[in-house]
């Protein structure tokens, strides 16, 4: 480049500092991860969380490492709304509206523990596709209605979809 024109140190810093800072941030982030820190971590903590997020490869790894997808596990607040949910993997996939995940979980040994509850959850999140995947399409809705202030998902989980 032609370098005859006068440039001040301030302008050099102004132009160079933002990209250097950006690359340093990325490098620092990677270094922190290498050292075991997990800044801004959003990794699924269990197979239910992975199912709710649609993290298929992670869900398969949990199952391969011995995690039973049929056991209800806590899904942390922020994954499926603000409240924590304790559900098995298939119900988590329903709540996360992950149709492909439901099929994958069934291929991997997950079963529908409580058909009415799963149907109730599918109705509660308005996810009728799940019902056809689970082979229960066309059956009457089982959404539990216990008042306007009630959380329909919590009602399904509490009452198992039974009115």
């Amino acid at each position, binding site marked *: *480049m*032609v*370098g005859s*024109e*006068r*440039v*001040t*140190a*301030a*302008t*050099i*810093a*102004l*132009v*160079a*500092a*933002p*990209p*250097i*800072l*950006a*690359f340093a*941030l*990325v*490098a620092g982030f*990677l270094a922190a*991860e290498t050292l075991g820190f*997990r*800044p*801004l*971590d*959003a*990794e*699924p903590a269990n197979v239910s969380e992975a199912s709710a997020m*649609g*993290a*298929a*490869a*992670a*869900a*398969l*790894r949990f199952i*391969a490492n011995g995690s039973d997808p049929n056991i209800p596990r806590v899904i942390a607040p*922020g994954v499926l709304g603000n409240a924590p949910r304790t559900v098995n993997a298939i119900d988590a996939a329903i709540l996360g509206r992950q149709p*492909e995940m439901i*099929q*994958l979980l069934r*291929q991997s040994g997950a079963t529908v523990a409580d058909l009415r509850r799963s149907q109730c959850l599918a109705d509660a999140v308005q996810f009728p596709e799940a019902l056809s995947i689970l082979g229960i399409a066309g059956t009457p809705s089982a959404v539990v209605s216990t008042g306007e202030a009630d959380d329909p998902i919590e009602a399904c989980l509490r009452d198992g979809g039974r009115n």
Partner: protein
Amino acid sequence: MNEPTASIDAARRPQLIAYGAATGVAALFAVALLRIPIQLSDSFTELLSMQGQTLSTVVRSEIAGGPYFRPLRRGLIKVVLDLSGGDFSPWFRGFHALEVLILFVLFVRMLRPRTSADLAVVSLALAMIAGSHLFLDIFREAFPINHFLTIVICAVAAVNLAQSRGGWLVDAAAVLLLVFAMATIESGLLVWVILVAAWLAGYRGISRGALVAATLAFAGYFALRFGFLRGTIPAIGERDTGYLLTEATAGEMRRLFGNSPWVLYAYNLVSAFGCTLFAEPRSGTFMLTRSLLTDEVRPWQVLTVATSALTTALIIWYAATRIRSWRPFRLNEDDRLVALFLVLLPANAVFDIVYEKDVVLSVAGIFFVAAAAVAMKRLMAVAATPPGARRAFAYAAMLVIACGWSLRSIGTQYRLREVASITRDDWAYYDRWAQRQDSVTIDTPEKKRVWQTLYDDAVWRRPRPPAIDSRLLEAWSDPKE
């Protein structure tokens, strides 16, 4: 005795620092790229189709009529495939990372940094490449070799050859580079445009004789492809593409423009200019405009369009202040790079007229960055003038451009991490994907081995990089929707 050596070292120091910075940024990309498994679509099928074939069979099968002429594209994939010895992911992803490193180093060499100001501009230029919407797919995708990246490397290498002191080796390399690029994908023809434009701009590394040879090779390409092989150009409606405020399917494009293709060609040409200069439209669709109309503007859209538009304004300002002094064959070093961009912009846009794809414009994109680097250096000189409105404006422009592109470069890294997860999940859903394919069959032990290796790599062997939760990054990073 030591003084000349010391002065040479002092002169080389900015270059060494610049190469170090380029290598460092390439290393960041290498980490991100090596975490991404080989893609299921485009890549897996490509590897399957090469099982049991020799290199010459692969290359010869591509030398045929039709809308595309890319014999070395698959040839290069076959070479890396054979070298990998079945260890596909590290080889192909490593090759991708190596290409990024080569691009960054050649690009820095093309800028020829000599001063501290040059170094500042180089760091900004690296952020621009890392954050450009025209390079997103170059980093995000591989087929399993990203041939668009290969052509950008060829383009920058051509300028490096033109900048050299010349000689028969340089001449031979220039012609071979052109032949390689042309036989890789169609936009490789741009290497010829670069060789000629560089000579007209005053670079003398490549001799007239080599230019004549390159021109003969260029003409030979057309004679071979359209004369001997009776090839065609891609027809309208072979791929989906954007149009005004919508993304049109291939069928819709045929219905809309089947009888008036020139309307689409003209639209796509103008779109290509807009995409390169203003990041709007994207792949033919006016996305920011659409978001404005539906009141759904996302921060990344504003960031992308604002930084691109402001950088374009900077280049226009530079060209306007310099163009009166431009004479054929007598441009100074900086002006030559800007002139190359002005030539490459329309030339590259021509390759985008049948269907719009941002990454096709990556050759124009790399010269956009070079021109912006030159213009930024000029702006830095303006900022050294006595205090006043002119200086304040220069400072503000520098700050906004530098911060904007830096933020975009972080966004690319964030999206690469996302791609690493998405690609793994694609593999986890392999059965569903396979059901939708008409032509994918795993009917031999070799093909089964390829599938098993890639599946295991994606799902079991190499865990994905930790997902991160950041509303800020999500909002400001270009998802290339």
